[in-house]
């Protein structure tokens, strides 16, 4: 298995995905309509022979330059990066998702391809479109189509993201449409759409302040327009956010019967509400301030607003990731990549005997620690590390040795088989008792040494003799 013991495997996906989502929402879905509207304004003024037309057009071009460079480099590559990182960290879940959503992804790819083609046409022909009014009109139309495609790619991906949280009727019927139109689909899309528009507005405001000289009438006009845009969309974010806030627990808490689990869920969930309220308050205040005192609006103020907006989006994604635990695909696969329906087999036979990449198939007194390491890799390493972020040793120390005293083996042995009852977000331990003992021994052996353990990418793999064949030439 691929494993990064320093940062943790989840971090790899999280960093790449969050960068991608921010670029997608703030520089494509929410930003392209603003650029198109700016160009449209320039076009309308040009028809009237107003000299301000060129200023709108030039500002739109400058904003588009930024969007073009970032979306076609970091944006495009982080999109591919999500595929790469999930293939490394969560191969079973992404492999399953692809088989269910192949057609949706293929369709999304076609739309994405059109989006990239249109983004290139839109940016690279911008200067040429200035030759006459007809070219400009056609160019504005390209911008409008591009904005539509950009939203459409998001609308498709949201179906798959929703599926990961609530598989709906898919577990019975296993069809694409059952999976795609899951109960969380529209709730999430309703939130992401206005959120992207607000994010786009915040980025456009910041870049406008960067590009336009202070104390000009045009700058004031642009700021007022952009603020109006944000002002119009912010209440939608609030309404959709509140709807999401109340709707999700109704859909997802059904499986959580333990009070403590509900409490943990609520704590996480409240962090989303707080960041949402912070966004609304800051955004509204900044909007009002900028309209009343446009000359006093600084880049730093906008940078702060932008930070709050991105923070809210980051929190939303983080909460979304957290609340689907203990599953990676709700009720089908746990976050350790093991299928729910295979658990009985693992519990009965042990997990090692079914593992393809494990040094030992059975735990003995002689191999306990090494076998425990393999159990850790199979059952825990998708979320935990040994010595890095979210260390499993730290977790047990927090529980059983807050002052650094040696870990209590008996308590750990008693805890592991029932941990999902105390921590609702943890998948149940998949192995047998001997493997739980081996895991305990391995964790205890690392308490004071904290060695970073290597994944397959550094040290290769041990192939189980039971799960291999000799090559016949």
């Amino acid at each position, binding site marked *: 298995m691929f494993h990064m013991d320093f940062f943790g495997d989840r971090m790899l996906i999280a960093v790449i995905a969050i960068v991608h989502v921010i670029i997608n929402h703030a520089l494509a879905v929410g930003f392209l309509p603003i650029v198109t509207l700016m160009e449209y304004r320039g076009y309308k003024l040009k028809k009237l022979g107003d000299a301000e037309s060129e200023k709108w057009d030039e500002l739109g071009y400058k904003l588009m330059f930024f969007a073009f*460079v970032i979306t076609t480099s970091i944006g*495009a590559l982080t999109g591919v990066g999500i595929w790469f990182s999930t293939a490394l960290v969560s191969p079973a879940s992404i*492999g*399953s998702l*692809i088989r269910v959503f192949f057609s949706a992804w293929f369709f999304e790819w076609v739309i994405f391809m059109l989006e990239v083609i249109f983004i290139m046409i839109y940016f690279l022909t911008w200067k040429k479109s200035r030759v006459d009014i007809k070219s400009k009109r056609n160019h504005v139309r390209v911008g409008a189509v591009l904005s539509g495609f950009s939203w459409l790619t998001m609308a498709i991906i949201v179906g798959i993201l929703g599926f990961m949280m609530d598989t709906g009727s898919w577990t019975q019927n296993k069809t694409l449409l059952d999976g795609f139109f899951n109960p969380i689909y529209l709730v999430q899309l309703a939130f992401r759409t206005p959120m992207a528009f607000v994010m786009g507005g915040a980025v456009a405001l910041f870049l406008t302040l960067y590009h336009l000289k202070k104390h000009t009438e045009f700058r004031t006009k642009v700021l007022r327009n952009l603020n109006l845009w944000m002002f119009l969309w912010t209440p939608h974010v609030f309404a959709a956010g509140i709807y999401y806030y109340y709707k999700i627990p109704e859909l997802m808490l059904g499986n959580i019967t333990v009070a403590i689990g509900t409490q943990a869920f609520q704590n996480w969930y409240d962090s989303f509400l707080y960041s949402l309220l912070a966004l609304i308050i800051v955004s509204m205040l900044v909007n009002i301030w900028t309209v009343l005192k446009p000359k006093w609006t600084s880049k730093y103020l906008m940078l702060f607003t932008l930070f709050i907006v991105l923070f809210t989006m980051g929190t939303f994604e983080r909460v979304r990731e957290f609340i689907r635990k203990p599953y990676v695909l709700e009720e089908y696969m746990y976050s350790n990549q093991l*299928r729910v329906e295979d658990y009985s087999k693992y519990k009965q036979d042990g997990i090692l005997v079914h593992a393809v990449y494990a040094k030992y198939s059975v735990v003995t007194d002689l191999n306990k620690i090494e076998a425990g390491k393999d159990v850790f890799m199979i059952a825990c390493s998708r979320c935990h590390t040994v010595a890095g972020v979210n260390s499993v040793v730290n977790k047990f120390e927090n529980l059983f040795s807050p002052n650094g005293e040696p870990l209590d083996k008996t308590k750990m042995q008693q805890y592991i088989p029932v941990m999902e009852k105390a921590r609702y977000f943890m998948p149940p331990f998949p192995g047998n008792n001997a493997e739980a003992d081996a895991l305990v021994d391995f964790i205890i052996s690392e308490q004071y040494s904290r060695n970073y353990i290597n994944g397959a990418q550094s040290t290769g793999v041990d*192939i189980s003799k039971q799960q291999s064949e000799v090559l016949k030439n």
Partner: protein
Amino acid sequence: MYLFAQVQPVPRDIPLPLPMPEWILILLLIISFLLHILFINLMIGGTALEIIAQVLGLKDKKYDALAREIASTITVNKSLAVVLGVAPLLIINTLYTIYFYSANALTGWAFISVIPLVATAFLILYYHKYNWDNFENKKKLHIAILSTAFLIFMFVPLIFLSNINLMLFPDKWGEVSGFISSVFLWNVIPRYFHFLAGTMAVTGLFIVWYFGRKKYPFEERLHGFTREEIKRKGYQITFWVTVSQIVWGPLLFFTLPWRGVTWELAYIIIAGIIFALAALHFIYKEIKSVNPGRYLLLIIILITITVSCMGFGRQTYRENVIAPHKVMIKEKTQQYYPM
């Protein structure tokens, strides 16, 4: 006996059916991969030619203008290369789930480094292109900046090739530890040079087409050159690098493990070679012609057939070499997850 035998792991497949018939997926894989690799060729080959033109431009300004024109094509080609890469990536994930994911994990650091490396290379390309005039008096630095992007482009195919090679040989999964050890497996290096030669051949033809178009304002943008001169240069690149495949082609073929080589594969490759030789014949005629361009469409068709043969050959070898292992996986999966 067991100690010296090559052991191959037999993992279980994902217990969900393929989303569409296997042959459709294979066909889509070949077509989408060839389209992707076409633009990858133009991206890498274009960058190589841009550097050469910029270096020549240090002494003769007209080459600097040529380099700038080539740069504008890379902006488009590189974006298409990435977006067209998503489809074969999606399909290879679907069709060869176990094989691809195993190779990914074993070359994990190098595999994931493709993302920051290529993103950095793209940003460098933009910086280089949109600051052309600002480097008017610092041309060597300007070339050095472009060269960093080029070096990245030269390295990334090696990662993909080692990965795609490793996935074919489950018996090597237990022996490999990281990217470096996978690079030196059998035919990765010959395959790399075979790919680079193909890259330059395709780019040479692209140059002939791009600068030879009637709509292209040649005289306005490229003072000091004639269309015929540029076309001839493009053809010469294609001709000589294709001739060099006499070395890389057989080297690649004979370093392939023989258990995947069949007569069917040999016929496909021989057919490809015949079309390549025919293309070479017409390219030679074009080079010698006073007004080259007459045979361009025919040459593109012949080269497309050659490339398609190589694409099908590649897929045939892949299927041949993993066929016995695929059977084992299928049996294991059915036994494990009885339907």
